[in-house]
């Protein structure tokens, strides 16, 4: 580890996650819903289903089908995004499915679809991670049986320094070795369901990054758990 202390633009510790907020039941119409935020990055997710899969030819008699749809609202970033799907959002939608499906007991729902809609209201990097965290909560809130929870965080490398939960300034860092973004999703039992990487890193540093993610996702898991527990209290 470099001895020089790297200062983060928002004053966080190197392994500090931005203030997190999580709440379930934000969309009353949905079977399950949640919001999750990392600082200024806010995601909301809603689950519809399990319900009959349409079109019918897409029905899978062996298991249910998880369909995720990630979308950034047009005004969630400085330069307006043209509404509708693009290549990036198509990929993130699929990645989100892959990140969530391992913990879902989806075999219980043959011929059914579980639709998860994720919208980013406000973006300051790590939107796919916030989206996955919200979606996992929404699925639990919908009462769909899950083996485990998943929690997602982005590990970054800014020049040579590893940090947890990248913000936009850090994502755009260009000096030295620049910025490397490594979003990772894990179960509470250290199973990895999603990893991506963009940038420049050695395999040794990458291994350290995965270890940081392991610790950070534990923290996120506690926030998710609390949100779910709080929602039950309200009903009482």
């Amino acid at each position: 580890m470099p001895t020089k202390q790297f200062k983060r633009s928002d004053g966080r510790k190197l392994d500090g996650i931005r203030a997190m907020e999580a709440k379930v039941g934000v969309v009353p119409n949905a079977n399950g819903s949640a919001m999750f935020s990392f600082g200024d990055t806010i995601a909301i997710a809603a689950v519809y289903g399990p319900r009959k899969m349409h079109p019918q030819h897409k029905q899978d008699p062996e298991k249910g089908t998880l369909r995720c749809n990630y979308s950034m609202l047009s005004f969630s970033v400085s330069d307006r995004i043209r509404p509708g799907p693009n290549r990036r959002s198509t990929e993130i939608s699929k990645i989100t499915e892959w990140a969530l499906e391992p913990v879902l007991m989806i075999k219980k729902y043959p011929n059914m679809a579980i639709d998860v809609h994720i919208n980013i209201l406000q973006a300051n990097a790590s939107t796919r991670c916030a989206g996955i965290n919200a979606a996992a909560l929404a699925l639990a809130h919908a009462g769909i049986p899950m083996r485990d929870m998943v929690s997602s965080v982005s590990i970054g490398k800014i020049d040579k320094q590893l940090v947890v939960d990248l913000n936009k300034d850090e994502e755009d860092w260009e000096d030295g070795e620049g910025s490397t973004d490594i979003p990772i999703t894990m179960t509470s039992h250290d199973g990895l369901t999603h990893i991506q990487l963009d940038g420049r890193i050695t395999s040794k540093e990458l291994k350290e990054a995965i270890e940081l993610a392991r610790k950070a996702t534990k923290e996120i898991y506690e926030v998710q758990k609390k949100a779910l527990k709080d929602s039950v209290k309200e009903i009482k």
Partner: protein
Amino acid sequence: MSGIKDIMETSNLTEKRIKEYLAEGKRFDGRKPGEFREISIETGVSKKAEGSARVKIGKTEVIVGIKLDVSEPYPDSLDKGKLMVTSELLPLSSPRFESGPPRFPAIELGRLIDRAIRESKFIQFEKLCIKKGEKVWAVFIDIYSINDDGNLIDAAGIGALVALKTAKFPKYDEKNEKVLHEELTTKKIPLSKEIPIMVTVHKIGDNILVDPTLEEEDINEVRITIGGTTDGTIFSMQKGNPKEISIEDIYKILDLAEKTRKKVFLNIEKFLK
């Protein structure tokens, strides 16, 4: 691939046999788990393209073409060239591919190649500026599958590198602001020495392997595509498929990918000079 197309996928019986073989470190075609099929490369497959390559890995084949054009820079990088990578899984290349707008596998393939090349800074975009804020060169890498017998991703990665290496700039008539695609110059695309080689590692049962045939690819549980150099720098990575994996297995995959990058590089080295 899912739904009605399942009928063409690897049968349960074949899956069982593949796994039995892998348990003994063997594969149907006699390869070891960490072994690639033969790679063959041909360049200049389309005279109209600024650069092109045909890559075969066993029976898998892709064609990659490069076009260069002059366009406006992106607002956030006014003095840098642009990169666009697209891929099409041609219906001619497999009974599983249908015509129509690109579906997810084609979109993902393009993005995987795009990110490995972009993040590695293989193309020196700052040298592709013609007039700051007004005109820059745009590099288009277009990938087409010709025959899919597994591992299109790695074939496309090799194809993109080789095609970029062979590409030559067309003449640019600055006065009339026209690119003369018919008149290629001898000038090549400025590339860096760090070559991003893409290797996808697949996990089937407890085994990890590279360069799957289609039957093997069908039954993989996890795949991880890694773009990096032969000396261990990693530029891009993406896990595919809805299965979880242990940290320990990720480490094994990173090691196998690094070893394989070296082997692939030796195979394609003479096309990258």
